[in-house]
């Protein structure tokens, strides 16, 4: 997609999270979950519009979504939204310049302050929270 003569790394480079640590991975997850949630959101609006088809229509539709596959998709959505929300709050604070470290003379070997432990912990916690929420969701949906 990008212009070849600029030697752009392109989408492949943008989505390759392997070279630059957890922050780059969080960047990618944020994008993917954002898109995933948007897709779900649109689907969800469509899904709920079936209520207009009356009880029969609604139940027909419920039958399609209330399946094991449907539950797994929903669990993923739960995970995505938890990650996106928690990480979103981290990113938002960061974008405002909060918690990104204080400028200071760097000493070799340079450890960038903005990539500090607090951020790493926040990223790991949002992943863990997302996983927990997914498990809880699965438990609720399959537990019945």
């Amino acid at each position, binding site marked *: 997609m990008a212009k070849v003569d600029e030697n752009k790394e392109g989408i492949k480079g943008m989505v390759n999270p392997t070279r630059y640590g957890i922050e780059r991975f969080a960047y990618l997850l944020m994008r993917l979950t954002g898109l995933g949630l948007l897709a779900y959101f649109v689907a969800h609006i469509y899904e709920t519009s079936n209520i207009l088809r009356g009880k029969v229509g609604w139940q027909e539709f419920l039958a399609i979504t209330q399946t094991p596959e449907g539950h797994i998709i929903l669990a993923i959505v739960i995970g995505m939204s938890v990650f996106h929300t928690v990480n979103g709050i981290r990113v938002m604070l960061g974008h405002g310049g909060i918690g990104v470290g204080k400028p200071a003379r*760097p000493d070799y070997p340079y450890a960038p302050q903005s990539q500090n432990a607090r951020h790493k912990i926040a990223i790991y916690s949002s992943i863990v929270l997302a996983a927990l929420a997914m498990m809880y969701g699965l438990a609720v949906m399959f537990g019945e």
Partner: protein
Amino acid sequence: MTSEGLQISKEESGIIVSPTKTITLRIFRYNPKINNESKFDEFKIPYQRWTTVLDAILEVKKHLDHSIAVRYSCRQASCGSCGMKINGRPALACFTKISELNSDVITIEPMNNFPIIRDLAVGFERMFSTHKKIKPYIINEESEINPGTKEFLQTPEDVEKYIQFSSCIKCGLCNSACPTMATDSSFVGPQALAQAYRYVADNRDKGKDDRLKIIDDSHGIFRCHFAGSCSQVCPKGVDPAMGIQLLRGYLLGFRD
């Protein structure tokens, strides 16, 4: 004493006194003006504990293939010439030792997100022009002085606020690592944004509003998503990611 001089020059020449190991370099070759095919050439050379990737490339250029196009100058990580992709990650060739790469084959490619002139040499025109665009100089009516003017007083703490960003050697590694740069040809990029912050943070400068206006557009500062890759590859500890977020703090009203 005279033989001394000779010994040392042999050192410099890369005529290896005790060749310990050899390494294979895979160097990217491409001349867009001549053909559309790029390829990798492989060279085997001996190296020592302190041999840098730049040393190795120049060794190849001296003895094995004169035609490799590569940019270099200071060989001490202060001029910013020798940025390239080494084993997939942007780095300064003169500041990467072969011994610290832990691999038997080293793949060397030109930096991404810059147009290739030839082989490892890339064009910097766009980065230089975005740098110019953010007004990288002190904006203050009193910046041109008269005879007798003394210094503007600035405490060491005032200096701390911007000195880190002022270490940027314009090597472009950050622009080449940034995920937005990977697809967005109009993004200002971490290099210029960090410099915008460098001047905004300097208490001699009064150009904050000017600069904030310049970077507040659809390919401006908001195209940074705090991926942090820029800071991870920066060879000088500039931490552009920090500068960018602090700068955006002004635009979001978190700081003033």
